[in-house]
């Protein structure tokens, strides 16, 4: 399987509403693309993405995704998490790809 990584700039996502962002992410995930989002997603967008993903999981090819905000957790406490600058989203089906904070 080829691995592609797309860096999604804030310029690209600025014009999108939450639904458009979800559709964009899921369509990319379905083409086996790993996304690195500048600016990241806010919690409500993350929840919307989960719900849309759950309706689109087909139990064959698309099984959802893995997500990580690689900001050191210690600096991202409960109340200043909005400073996160990046989110990595990868298709779940990449069995040999793990994304982790170490």
């Amino acid at each position, binding site marked *: 399987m080829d691995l592609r990584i797309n860096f999604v700039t804030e310029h690209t996502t600025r014009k999108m509403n939450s639904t458009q962002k979800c559709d964009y992410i899921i369509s990319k995930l379905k083409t086996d693309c790993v996304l690195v989002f500048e600016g990241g997603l806010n919690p409500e967008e*993350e929840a919307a993405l*989960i719900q849309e993903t759950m309706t689109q*999981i087909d*139990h064959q090819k698309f099984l*959802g*995704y*893995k997500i990580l905000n690689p900001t050191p*957790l210690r600096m991202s406490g409960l*109340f200043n998490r909005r400073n996160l600058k990046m989110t990595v989203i990868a298709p779940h089906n990449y069995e040999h790809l793990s994304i982790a904070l170490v």
Partner: protein
Amino acid sequence: MSILSRLFARSRKTQVTIGILGAPNAGKTTLANRISNECGNGEPLGVVSPVPHETRDCKALEHCVISDHNGSLDLTIVDTPGITTSIDYREFQQHGLSRQDSIQRAKEATRGVIKAIQSLDKMDAAIVVVDAARAPFDQINWTVIGNLEARKIPIIVAANKSDLAEADPELVKETFQSDIIPISAKDGSGMNELYGSILSVSGM
């Protein structure tokens, strides 16, 4: 009774709905069943299982009562399905289910995740159950906490499975930079602190 605690008692709601939220297998149902046993009619809210997504629907139990010297609180506790970003039917096959049963269970699990997210709008306060033995903790906890904050719902973070040697409640505290309550839903340690915290978030 001091003036302060009288004020506190007066402003406290007497009926509160508390959601129990978190990642699959964090111990939500174990905790809900324990609260039912210790404060309610003892009816289990659901089946506890090492297989993820055993809980695939929200289940509420009314009239769990906790009290302190300020009075008592009539709790409705809601056990919810674990929230996750992926559902892989092959995981159920690894637990011995047939392919067909695994896919069926996976389909129900996807619907369960949606129900858990929808339940966020129906609770007065939430207990986010984190598996303290699984560092560095699922991203999903942040998603859940962020969404509760956005709705101004008070949050209690419970660092569960603190009975396990590999549990690290201190790391949970550092990670979430909030007051966390180490508990073991399994052996019951930390429950009094948890009840105290429920009383205090309900006295908004």
